[in-house]
């Protein structure tokens, strides 16, 4: 019974493929899986936009959308119809070909990253040996699309937004990738499936999630912060800062192309959250062994939902950073801390899990955090500003 529910999607696909002729089976499997992923995450994208608007409204003591459908949850359909029927304007001086390709060039790599994410037991489209490498390679190519969009629009604000986006995404790419190195070292594999399996409960009752280690805890938050920056989410939404550069690199996009950018941003957010779940929160494994009866894919989407809630919560809380604060944070805090975690992982691996590891590694990580944090914010000298005319 449990097996049936857990493997329902896998068996459905396998049963369907059985009816097809042998040579096209792998291709058909790929297409169907990709369609299922796009459908699921497309729906999740719509629901997330509504939930985000409602949650942020509640944080500001407003009501949020509540007119379309029950409690306003069909708002995204109305929004989708609206953006589909809007006029698609291409600026006269734009580079028309690049302007057209850019939204697709953004969406395709983001969708590609979903191929290596395990959504449940045996539920991964491609179990690559270097899955994590594939994820980062595909994910990093979105930066090109962002710059294509900003450059081809021939708009100063677009170009500024694109430049900000490139600077930010390149800077945060480093801690984004470096924070995952510890996981790879401990697991000894770049395959996302192996990484999830290594975090299962094993013999004990508590799962060996990477987040339950001193270095993993720190790396998880580093990864999450870098994921915020990679997704251009608040507080790292400088590339689209409305008050300064209108909408950033997708300023000159309207109608469906704008919707594609919007969708790519959310899909990117889902995929980096999913990777955070995979690497640190044990993927589809249950946190404690007696909860193992819950289907694996349900665990995965539950964890994804928690991370999405965190994304929304932070967006409702933080103001936008300044450019120098953004860069300082990436290069002076996150990068050194991510590098520092690598020897700590080695130490953890040598002394083994358990209280000895915690006693040795915990204080080291905490001290590094405090020290680097103090170096980042503590050196700020606040002087009394004097004015020649205004203070008279």
């Amino acid at each position, binding site marked *: 019974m449990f097996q049936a529910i857990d493997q329902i999607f896998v068996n459905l696909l396998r049963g369907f493929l059985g009816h097809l002729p042998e040579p096209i089976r792998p291709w058909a499997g790929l297409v169907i899986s990709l369609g299922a992923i796009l459908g699921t995450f497309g729906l999740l994208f719509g629901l997330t936009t509504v939930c985000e608007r409602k949650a942020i409204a*509640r*944080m500001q*003591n407003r009501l949020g959308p509540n007119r379309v459908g029950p409690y306003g949850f069909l708002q995204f359909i109305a929004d989708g119809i609206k953006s589909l029927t809007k006029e698609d304007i291409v600026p006269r001086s734009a580079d028309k070909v690049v302007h057209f390709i850019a939204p697709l060039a953004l969406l395709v790599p983001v969708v590609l990253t979903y191929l290596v994410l395990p959504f449940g037991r045996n539920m991964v489209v491609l179990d690559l040996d270097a899955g994590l490498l594939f994820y980062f390679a595909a994910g990093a190519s979105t930066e090109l699309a962002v710059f294509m969009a900003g450059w081809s629009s021939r708009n100063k604000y677009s170009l500024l937004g694109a430049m900000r986006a490139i600077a930010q995404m390149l800077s945060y790419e480093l801690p984004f990738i470096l924070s995952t190195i510890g996981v790879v070292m401990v697991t000894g594999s770049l395959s996302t499936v192996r990484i999830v399996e290594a975090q299962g409960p094993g013999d004990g009752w508590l799962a060996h999630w990477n987040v339950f280690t001193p270095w993993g805890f720190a790396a998880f938050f580093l990864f999450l912060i870098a994921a915020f920056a990679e997704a251009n989410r608040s507080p790292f939404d400088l590339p689209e800062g409305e008050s300064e550069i209108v909408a950033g690199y997708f300023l000159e996009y309207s109608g469906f192309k704008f919707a594609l950018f919007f969708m790519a941003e959310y899909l990117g957010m889902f995929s980096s959250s999913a990777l955070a779940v995979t690497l640190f929160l044990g993927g589809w494994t249950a946190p404690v062994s007696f909860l193992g009866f819950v289907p694996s894919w349900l665990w995965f989407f539950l964890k994804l939902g928690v991370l999405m809630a965190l994304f929304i*919560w*932070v967006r*409702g*809380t933080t103001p936008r950073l300044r450019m120098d604060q953004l860069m300082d944070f990436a290069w002076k805090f996150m990068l050194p801390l991510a590098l520092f975690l690598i020897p700590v992982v080695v130490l953890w691996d040598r002394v083994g899990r358990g209280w000895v590891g915690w006693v040795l590694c915990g204080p080291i990580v905490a001290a590094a*955090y*405090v020290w680097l944090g103090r170096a980042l914010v503590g050196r700020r000298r606040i002087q009394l500003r004097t004015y020649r005319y205004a203070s008279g």
Partner: protein
Amino acid sequence: MLGSGIIKGLAETGRNFVGSYFDPERMTTVEYPEQRLAPKENTRQFPFLVFDGEAALAGLRCVACQICEKECPPQCIYIEKSREKKPDHLGKPQFHPAIFDIDISVCMSCQICVEVCPFDAIKMDTEFELSTSDRFGGLLMHKDLLARPNSHFLKVHPTDAGVIDARRAEERARLEAKARLDSEAKAKEAPPAA
């Protein structure tokens, strides 16, 4: 320490989020078409013309003095005086407006017309749901649309209307008293003459 600020911030928004579900005091939103705020007495939207009695156009207080037309900053009022005079509530012969138009698409609700009117004939209404499918003709209000009974004025601005009604009654009473005195005086003078 680094990170303490964001935790404080997250706690604050979290408190708002949870509180908005349990504390109705926090939610100040009025969902307009279904829910409405109680009307406030000093609300003003667009002017209307007050009339006494039953017949709207016959009972208009306006005497077509055109002060409001001249004072109106965006010049949204257009008045044409009648040729003949007819008695007002004090029995004095007065002109009345043959045409009285207000273009409420131009009106800026400044209430200057109300301030300058010596006859309490033009007052501000509280009606604001005036949308129309014809934005030129539909927003040009003629005097038959502008006329509202005094009872409406009493309803929307009770204090103001009460003061004005009392004053008008007093004026009328004074006039009647004077007329009575005059007739009595005439009556006293009359016998010797007779």
